[in-house]
């Protein structure tokens, strides 16, 4: 999947956060964005994902402009800096969330979740509520689980 | 997910269906203009009113009256005239508020048909063209059984009625005490002063402008200043103040011996009534002259409770039924009011509720008279002849608020 950002301008609450940002990422590339705190890294990510409106410029995924396409249809995923697990759901429901949205059958979901949890040595945690899991485990789960989700839904 | 949506849709559907078929709503009635009703004879009115609903708006806090209206009067109306009575409990202030709102908005098919009303409220409603009339001359029972010349029927608080309301029941203020606790009952203002000194802290009256408290003070004024001068007095504060000064002085003298030393007074007659039942005060007062019997029978008062009056008399008034100017069913209202004036209904009301009837005894046949005389008024009451022989008329309604103001300034807490 290739990503192209062209001359992006994003204004939030009357402040210009991004101005004239351009980026060209080719398929298979792995990029790190570095910058001081508050310089707009998250804003850029959110704009690419479609969570924020852009004032100027264009974003193209696989060479097609995604302007006007809502976040759920763009095929992008963000792993957020703050823990964003769904606390009222179980571990299994959290991980299977995107599969449920895509109407993957229940038994396939169950099998996939089991396999993924095994890979990160969290077997047997399927039915634990997020609230009940310790902070440290939570974090680990968050990163592992969401990375797995990305792997699954974006492949 | 589907369950949630269907639940929400169901709620919305219910809301809309209720507006569509409105299970609490009456079918809208045909609008008859006032002039058409005026030309109708009573027979035609009965025909017109068949199958319709008449609403009766009035105070709803008397459960015995409500029961009688719902279980005796309404079935009688349905059976005899095929008219459905609908009783709406509402304070007269609210009724007039709503009526004036409807008239202001140009509502021609008003929701209010019959109104239970009297006094200052009647006067202000009539003067603001909120009532339909004159109509009593069209009612056969009024012609046949009511003494149309009696001051009780032509004047409401000394204000000319001119046929805009028909009598409903009579009231007269009486005082009530438990003879086992206070064997001596005051017969005059002088006696009353003695009485209060004998039972300090145990006597009081409702703060004005409560209806009953106001009537008590007017009664004292009549006792001390005489009543004739008030019947045509001008409604200006200075004149009234000068005239009632002796009574105000008297009331001030009472204060130190009253409950709570006259610093505060119970807010209403119902509070005073409850204080009396509870034994906190030894004197009660009410406009409902025969209510005592009912309360003794219920057990709220002791068996030895008795009502009494001043020798010079106590104030009596009549309460009435009127018709809203924008009522959509004036014919029906008139048929209902006419029925309320029939000897049978009045006798039944007298028997069940002990409300003083409004009919002229001399116009009744022997059998009809017997049904009234045969009513057992119960314990602790004053026989009707005696009560009515000591009946004083009300003064003009406009003086009443003035006197209430003077009392608040001169007596309360002094």
């Amino acid at each position, binding site marked *: 999947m290739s990503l192209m950002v062209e001359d992006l301008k994003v204004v939030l*609450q009357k402040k210009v956060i991004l101005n004239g940002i351009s980026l060209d990422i080719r398929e298979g590339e792995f990029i790190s964005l570095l910058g001081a705190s508050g310089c707009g890294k998250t804003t850029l990510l959110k704009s690419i*994902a479609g*969570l924020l409106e852009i004032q100027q410029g264009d974003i193209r995924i696989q060479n097609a402009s995604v302007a006007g396409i809502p*976040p*759920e249809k763009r095929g*992008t995923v963000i792993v*957020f800096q*703050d823990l*964003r697990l*769904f*606390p*009222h*759901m*179980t571990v299994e*429901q959290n991980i299977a*969330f995107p599969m449920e*949205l895509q109407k993957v059958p229940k038994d396939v979901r169950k099998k996939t979740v089991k396999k993924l949890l095994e890979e990160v040595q969290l077997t047997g945690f399927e039915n634990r509520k997020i*609230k009940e899991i310790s902070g440290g485990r*939570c974090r680990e789960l968050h990163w592992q689980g969401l990375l797995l*989700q990305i792997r699954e*839904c974006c492949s | *997910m589907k369950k*949630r949506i269907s639940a*929400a849709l169901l*709620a919305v559907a*219910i*809301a809309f269906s*209720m*507006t569509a078929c409105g299970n*609490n*709503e*009456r079918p809208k009635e045909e609008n008859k203009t006032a002039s058409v009703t005026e030309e109708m004879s009573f027979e035609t009115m009965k025909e017109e009113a068949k199958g319709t609903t008449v*609403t009766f*708006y009035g*105070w709803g*806090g*008397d*459960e015995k009256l409500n029961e009688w209206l719902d*279980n005796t009067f309404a079935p009688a109306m349905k059976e005899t005239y095929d008219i459905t009575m609908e009783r*709406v*409990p*509402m304070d007269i202030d*609210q009724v007039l508020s*709503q009526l004036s*709102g*409807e008239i202001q*908005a*140009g*509502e021609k098919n008003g*929701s*209010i048909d019959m109104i239970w009303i009297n006094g200052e409220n009647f006067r202000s409603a009539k003067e603001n063209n909120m009532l339909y009339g004159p109509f009593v001359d069209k009612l056969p029972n009024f012609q046949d059984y009511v003494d149309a010349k009696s001051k009780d029927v032509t004047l409401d608080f000394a204000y000319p009625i001119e046929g805009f309301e028909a009598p409903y029941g009579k009231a007269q203020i009486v005082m009530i005490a438990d003879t086992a606790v206070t064997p001596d009952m005051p017969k005059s203002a002088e006696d009353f002063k003695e009485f209060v000194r004998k039972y300090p802290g145990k006597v009081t009256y409702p703060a004005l402008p409560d209806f009953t408290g106001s009537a008590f003070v007017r009664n004292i004024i009549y006792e001390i200043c005489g009543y004739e001068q008030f019947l045509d007095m001008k409604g200006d504060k200075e004149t009234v103040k000068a005239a009632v000064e002796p009574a105000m002085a008297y009331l001030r003298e009472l204060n130190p011996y009253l409950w709570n030393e006259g610093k505060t007074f119970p807010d209403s*007659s119902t509070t005073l*009534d*409850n204080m009396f*039942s*509870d*034994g906190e005060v030894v004197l009660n007062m009410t406009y409902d002259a025969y209510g005592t019997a009912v309360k003794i029978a*219920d057990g*709220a*008062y002791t068996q030895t409770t008795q009502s009494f009056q001043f020798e010079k008399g106590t104030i009596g008034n009549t309460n009435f039924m009127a018709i809203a100017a924008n009522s959509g069913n004036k014919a029906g209202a008139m048929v209902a009011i006419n029925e309320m004036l029939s000897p049978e209904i009045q006798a039944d009301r007298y028997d069940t509720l002990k409300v003083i009837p409004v009919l002229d005894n001399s116009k009744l046949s022997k059998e009809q008279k017997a049904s009234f005389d045969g009513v057992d008024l119960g314990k602790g009451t004053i026989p009707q002849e005696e009560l009515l022989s000591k009946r004083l008329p009300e003064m003009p309604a406009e003086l009443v608020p003035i006197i209430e103001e003077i009392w608040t300034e001169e007596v309360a807490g002094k």
Partner: protein
Amino acid sequence: MKNKRKSIFISITQFVLLAAILVPAVTLLLWIFTERWTWPDLAPQVFSKRAIFEIAGRKKELLQILWSSILISTVVAVLSAVIGIMTARAILLYRFPGKQVVYFFTILPFMVPATVFAMGIQITFIKMGLNNRITGVIIAHLICSLPYAIRLIMDGTAAVGSRLEEQARVLGASPFKAFYKTSLPMLMPVILSAVSMSYIVSFSQYFLTLMIGGGNVKTFTILMVPYLQSGNRNIACIYSTLFLGVTLLVFGVFEWAAGRFMKHGGGEFYTSE
């Protein structure tokens, strides 16, 4: 030692609070059967079943009025919650011109007394043909209960935020699904509060229902309040007890319904670690 004192203090406070609720409730129940109860007796002197007969005699009418009152108030409660959610989200999560004005309007009913509002709106409703109709009463009640619903749900929405929804969106959820699956379960407790509050505001309305309903729409309070004013204490008490009992029942149903919805575990505000 300090812990022991603290727990004694807590127990005493709990006891006092419990007594403050129970003693009047018991008195209320006792007064239903009382005809005469003078001080200083601890129990009534004269008992009567007058209040019971009054209710028994009106069973059919009472059931009908109770049912329609509950229905009206439930519709008001549900509509308040829905409008509350939408308004809270609009004010907190969206940017649009005039937001402050909208917010001001949502708290306006707190500032305008119900009586003033009733008299003013009556004329408008008459002209719109809404007077004396159930729809008019529902709308009027809604205007009174919305400030509570909106305030409560705004607090909840602010606590829950849009973070979880954003996460759900990037994972492929449509806006509605994102709200429904992530925010709504978290908001359930505050929605329950809003629904209960709106229900009570509507169920206890007297003057407003009287003015707008015009005597045509009869709710339970219309029957009850004249008896409260009349000094007929036993009748007043039995109507009050009915009022309380019915309300408690309805709240129980609301809680059960919310509980069923939350059985997947929603129900605590989640603040970031």
